[in-house]
């Protein structure tokens, strides 16, 4: 919907946008690729940059509920687990990360609600 209201009608811009939209339909290995190509100046901040999964690039495979410092990076101020679309983590890693965070919460290393001290 945002794309249709775009004022610029130059063929170059349209061609570029069409390519990007086509690219978006193909499955991507990492990231979720938001509804991109919203180049409106006052547009919502979708798809600012391509996010890669930090764990896939560093090849970190398992999460321990004990390393609170790593887990606390993916926990918001309110204590909630940060969603994947904000952190760019891929699905299997996000699942394992959530499991580790929940284990840490159970053993009082992370809070259920409130700031992680």
């Amino acid at each position, binding site marked *: 919907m945002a794309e249709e209201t775009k004022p610029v009608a130059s063929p170059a811009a349209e061609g570029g946008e069409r390519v990007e939209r086509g690219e978006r339909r193909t499955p991507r290995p990492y990231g979720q690729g938001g509804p991109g190509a919203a180049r409106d100046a006052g547009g919502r901040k979708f798809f600012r940059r391509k996010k890669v999964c930090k764990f896939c690039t560093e*090849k970190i*495979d*398992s999460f321990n*509920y*004990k390393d609170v410092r790593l887990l606390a990076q993916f926990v918001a101020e309110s204590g909630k687990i940060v969603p994947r679309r904000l952190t760019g983590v891929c699905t299997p890693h996000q699942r394992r990360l959530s499991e580790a965070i929940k*284990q840490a*919460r*159970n*053993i*009082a*290393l*992370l*809070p*259920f609600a*409130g700031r*992680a*001290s």
Partner: protein
Amino acid sequence: MNRTYELMFIVRPDMAEEEQDKLLSTLEAAVTSSGGQVKNVERMGKRRLAYTVRRFNDGIYVLLTVEGSGGMVHELERRLRVTEPVIKFLTVRIDETQKRIDKLKAIRDAKRRTSAAQAPAATPEAAGEAPAVTA
């Protein structure tokens, strides 16, 4: 009988050192009597809890790595539940994750070794090997 478990429990902060040792030796005795093996005992010291547990704000964390059967863990947990100074515990099974990590590491090392040795002939071999193992 080769399941590895990690048992972490929190003891109240005003517990004396010798009482902790007594508790640990009781648990270790329970492990060996049910045919298990204690791999590691780690005292992580006093830490601030993320939330209040039974009106305590700090606790002494102890990590116990054991190897044994599920029945043994059941027994250990029962003892911990009954022990008054223990305010929280968590048991995690770690042999499956360890197996997965080792397998992935082995695949990665094999790929690296073969690709380092002979680049053209090895890469189709490694690529053919990897999907077969991960399937």
